[in-house]
């Protein structure tokens, strides 16, 4: 599904990703953990195509595509979805409008006709129930006056509507109460299938109790310094990131 080789990226000449190697087979969920500022959001943004970051070395293969050569909207049309750590507000443009435009952009890209209004509304009705949002809410402006938790629910709602093959979820579990966390976990589990992969960026093992990952990676100073099974999350929770300096030396040598 996704294969990242020796990926280096910088912003304003400052290196942030310093040689990432990561393979995510189809059907798997991988968690990426790591201290603040280690480059987790940068990795997710680079994969989604944010131009602010300059890729200086390395390659990324996604399905049959050289991912880095596609525009962000093309990546989305190919099934990449980024759940934002900080979703933006777009007053006056309804959530429904955005989703219909997004779905139709995909359809157009694949040479398919636009979605019929009735089919679209059926889909909306089904998915808002999964995430506990109301029709009134999705008719409002994109994230307009949404609380932090509502914004994250909305990211999951969008993901469920767009049914990506590669979901990159950047701290979609942060700042949530337990009910909202369950909604997020449930959304991720619903999409779990042999054709889809998910990358979960998280600080907390709590999410991983509801969504058991196939692999857990630790990102530190722009490199993956340790990888393991779900039990690695327990170790990290117990020990913190204190021993990573030694890991880093090991990884670069």
């Amino acid at each position, binding site marked *: 599904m996704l294969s990242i080789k020796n990926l280096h990226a910088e912003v304003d000449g400052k290196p942030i990703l310093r040689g990432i190697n990561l393979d995510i087979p189809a059907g798997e969920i991988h968690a990426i953990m790591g201290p603040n500022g280690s480059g987790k959001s940068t990795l997710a*943004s680079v994969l*989604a*195509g*944010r*131009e*602010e970051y300059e890729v200086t070395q390395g390659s990324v293969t996604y399905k049959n595509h050289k991912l880095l050569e596609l*525009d*962000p*909207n093309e*990546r*989305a*049309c190919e099934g*990449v*979805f*980024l759940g*934002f750590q*900080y*979703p*933006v507000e*777009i*007053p*006056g*443009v309804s959530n429904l*409008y*955005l*989703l219909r*435009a*997004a*779905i139709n*952009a*995909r359809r157009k*890209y694949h040479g398919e006709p636009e979605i019929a209004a009735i089919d679209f509304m059926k889909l909306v009705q089904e998915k808002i129930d999964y995430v506990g949002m109301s029709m009134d809410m999705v008719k409002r*402006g994109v994230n307009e006056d949404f609380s932090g938790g509502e914004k994250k629910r909305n990211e999951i709602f*969008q993901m469920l509507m*767009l049914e990506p093959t590669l979901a990159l979820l950047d701290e979609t579990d942060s700042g949530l109460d337990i009910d909202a966390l369950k909604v997020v976990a449930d959304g991720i589990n619903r999409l779990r299938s042999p054709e889809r992969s998910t990358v979960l960026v998280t600080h907390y093992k709590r999410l991983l109790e509801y969504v058991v990952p196939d692999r857990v990676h630790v990102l530190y100073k722009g490199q993956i310094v340790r990888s393991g099974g779900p039990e690695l999350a327990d170790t990290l929770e117990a020990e913190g990131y204190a021993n990573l300096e030694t890991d880093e030396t090991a990884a670069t040598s």
Partner: protein
Amino acid sequence: MSATQQIEPNIDHYLAEYARVERELPGSDDSKRERQAELRRFSDAGFPSTREEDWKYTSLRPIEKRRFEISDEADTPSEKALAPFLPAGLDAFRIVIVDGHFSAVLSGLDGLPPGATVRSFAAYLNATDGASIKAREIDEEPGSLTAMNAAFFTDGAYIEMAAGTVVDKPIHVLSVASGARDERMTQVRHRYVMGENSQATVIEHFVGVGDNPYFTNAVTEAVMGRNSQLTRCRVQQESDKGYHVSSFFAQQRRDSRVFNHGFDLGGRLARIDTNARLVDQNSEVHLFGVYAPTGRQHIDNHTRIDHATEHSLSREFYKGVLADYGRGVFNGKIIIHRDAQKTDSAQACDALLLSDKAEVDAKPELEIYADDVTAAHGSTVGQLDEDAVFYLKSRGIGEEGARAILTYSFANSLVNKVGIPALVSYIEAALLAKLPGGQAYADLA
């Protein structure tokens, strides 16, 4: 004007043009004398120049160098040509002026409630003894272009609401420049006389349809009686060959309210002066505006609110959207006079630059001579939020579409304030149509 003074050739042209058309202009012989005085005021002062502080950023050279003429009659455009300017689903009374002449065929005024008068200004002048070309209730209409208008205007809308009259449907005042002939001018004057406790909504709409350069010079007077309410939606969609200059003067008696919404989408060059004088207690004025110069358009809005006496309120919000080589000017003057204690005033102007070739000068200008007032003002100039652009792109929407959607979002809150759904949709669609990639998202409106 003294005999020794050199007359500019272009001014000479307008003196001759006045002589040519005077007999045909509406109004009594007395009113012709008023017009002659206005013509002198215009010819003495000439066109405003960029040496004047209020005209610093807007040069009228392109207008001055041409020789515009009054159209003796209208070149009525086809229904097809006008159709795009009739907002779909808008249920309104309609008065249409083409090339400065009232068009009975295009107008639709049946069913006005008793007490409401909507008619041709020319017909009103011709039929009314002692009718004056300028509203006597309005202290002053400064500026040489307003004088030019007073001398030359051929027609316009005359709206009068008797005391207590409420019109529930908007009145669509549509002024069309046919652009059918080269270098024509439409000098139109509208007067809205709002009796005590009356209420009306006027959509004052300027459009241009042809290919020839033309000049629109419009003046609107609003005489606001006690506790009256006027909502005026000024929609300016001159053609890209149109030069547009207009002034609005509202004089507000006690407890009256003016809601003025301006949308400047058209014109090669447009200059709009919006003036409200709060001369009595507890009067309110709300000025909202969106201007969107794209291509090589130049759009200049000057506003002036005079708080002349105590306990009055003003709110003013303007937003500019500037793309391509668009040039925008906003100057919002608020004067709180010495006796205007307890004035409550707030103003903000924001501009969005969509291209590095676009330019805007937007500033509030506050003069306060009273000591017990509330006055807030602010001004921002910025670009689209790149996080938001990326957010939309990450959902599958292309670069241009993302920018058009976010620009729509920027202007949306002010457009919505109009409160007439059919007009809101119409304006939003017209705005989107001007933006690169916006056409595809016209259904946002």
